[in-house]
């Protein structure tokens, strides 16, 4: 009480205990509202939503955790080379990579799946990640596979299939009933698989046509936007002989590059109004204009253990000015999940990969 007498004259109206409690509660509620909003944004209140982390968990659940390796396309080798642009792409895109001239390219050939030591199989999905280093310091990355269309339209479908196609531990084969149920649910996947089977098969990396799969937009100097897809068509006739050797696809690739550089033509497929840009399961109608914009050459091959490509995220949305994303829902999801996989493996102890530096030198 004595203290209160010492207090100076106060212009503030008296605050009752009840008033004080009410105001403190209000403060608490305001802080809780802010914290709650952030918890909601961070997905803490929706534990079943498919997030990049849960997607990556899915890969780890199906393929096992292999520290230091990519969660998908775990087995691979690095390559170096260059892209020689012929200038034909300039009318479609202002990206510096399409001006006439040469830019250096870092690449990585890989096989689909999360097991880094699995034996090569002719039925594996063959992948090629590329990084073009543009003269002004910009980077263009693209991750392509040898299938002409992607079997899944949405990230959710991809995730479902990961589990539906998971090999049964007792038979080593996927459960046909689960696959059937998945396809019944996803007729677009059934259609895509039919289309993939109808296309001529390639024998290995060197004679594969690689597809960017998703649609993108090219923006030229006049600001005109054009829907595009891109593919790499092999410049060399080539045949990989299937064998029991567990690395036969990679060994053939290494031997070939040691013998002479491997080349592909970068072909831009120009979409027409009405061509779907949000559905990677559907090929655009045949007869769309195809523009050969230059030649990609790989003249050096390297083990994943020493290649700079091992620690590169071939994020399909690492794009230079002049190339932009489309409304394809896979693109943002790929970017997010690749990033999650990259962050996990970046902090893990590295193990020697299946194709060691000695393995690569042997092919010389």
């Amino acid at each position, binding site marked *: 009480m004595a*203290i*209160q007498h*010492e*207090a*100076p*004259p*106060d*212009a*503030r109206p008296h*605050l009752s205990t009840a008033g*004080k409690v009410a*105001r*403190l509660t*209000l*403060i608490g509620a*305001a*802080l809780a509202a*802010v*914290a709650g*909003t*952030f918890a909601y*944004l*961070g*997905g803490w209140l929706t534990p079943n*939503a*498919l*997030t*990049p*982390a849960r*997607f990556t968990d899915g890969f780890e659940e199906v393929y096992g955790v292999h520290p230091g390796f990519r969660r998908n396309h775990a087995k691979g080798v690095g390559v170096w080379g260059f892209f020689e642009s012929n200038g034909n792409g300039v009318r479609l895109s202002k990206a*510096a990579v399409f001006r006439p001239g040469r830019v250096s390219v870092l690449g990585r050939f890989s096989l689909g799946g999360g097991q880094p030591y699995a034996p090569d199989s002719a039925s594996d999905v063959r992948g090629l990640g590329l990084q073009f280093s543009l003269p*002004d*310091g*910009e*980077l263009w990355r693209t991750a392509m596979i040898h299938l002409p269309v992607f079997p899944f339209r949405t*990230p959710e479908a991809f995730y479902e299939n990961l589990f539906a196609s998971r090999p049964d531990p007792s038979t080593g084969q996927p459960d046909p009933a689960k696959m059937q149920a998945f396809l019944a649910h996803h007729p677009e996947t059934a259609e895509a698989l039919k289309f993939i089977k109808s296309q001529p098969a390639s024998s290995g990396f060197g004679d594969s046509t690689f597809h960017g799969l998703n649609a993108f937009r090219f923006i030229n100097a006049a600001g005109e936007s054009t829907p595009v897809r891109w593919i790499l068509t092999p410049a060399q006739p080539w045949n990989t002989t299937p064998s029991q050797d567990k690395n036969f696809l990679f060994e053939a690739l290494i031997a070939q590059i040691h013998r002479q550089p491997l080349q592909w033509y970068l072909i831009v497929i120009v979409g027409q109004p009405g061509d779907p840009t949000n559905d990677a399961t559907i090929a655009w109608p045949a007869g769309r204009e195809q523009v050969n914009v230059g030649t990609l050459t790989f003249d050096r091959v390297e083990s994943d253990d020493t290649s*700079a490509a091992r*620690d*590169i*995220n071939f*994020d399909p*949305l*690492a794009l*230079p*000015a*002049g190339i932009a*994303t489309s409304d394809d*829902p896979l*693109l*943002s*999801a790929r*970017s*997010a*999940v690749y*990033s999650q996989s*990259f*962050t996990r*493996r*970046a*902090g893990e102890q590295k193990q020697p990969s299946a194709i060691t530096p000695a393995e690569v030198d042997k092919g010389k």
Partner: protein
Amino acid sequence: MPNQRTQFTALMRILHWTMAAMVLTQLGIGITMVASLADYHTLVSIHRPLGAAILVLVVVRFVVRQLSPLPPFPPTMSRLERMAALASEYTLYGFMFVLPLVGWSMLSAARYPVMLFGSVHLPFILPHDALLYAILRRTHTILAYLLFLTYLAHFGAILFHTLIVRDGMLFRMVPWNVRPREVVRGSSQPTSRRERVEV
């Protein structure tokens, strides 16, 4: 002559509220994008240039703060409270400077292109090193949570001063100009009850 200022300078107040909006947006985008598949790319494309803008602005703001006259603390605040207020102010400056710098560094170590707009991008400031990236990436998250907690303390403190102590502290930073009378309508005496008790 006693300090007659009742508010921070107009420039400081503009910087405060602009950056408050930017930093809260940035924290919201950051926590949203790491959990998002569909909006990841759009959010990342905002997060990077916004972080660069915050880094530039916090340097400007710090210089402006050093050169500007400051209003005195309300007399209701004890010396300890004044020290805590100053410490939290500098802590917030520190976070706003270090967080974008760690973000830029981690992207550099991972060789992620840091596109700002058009073909304008930031150079890499660290060598390509995955382990360094992993450490900085974790640091970025931890610092972001600490910044968020510091912000909550800051927000809670100003609410406490406004609703319980009622010393008009908020008026020092409100975007509009207020007359001196309103600011000191709490205790106008040189020493308050609180100070006398604690001294």
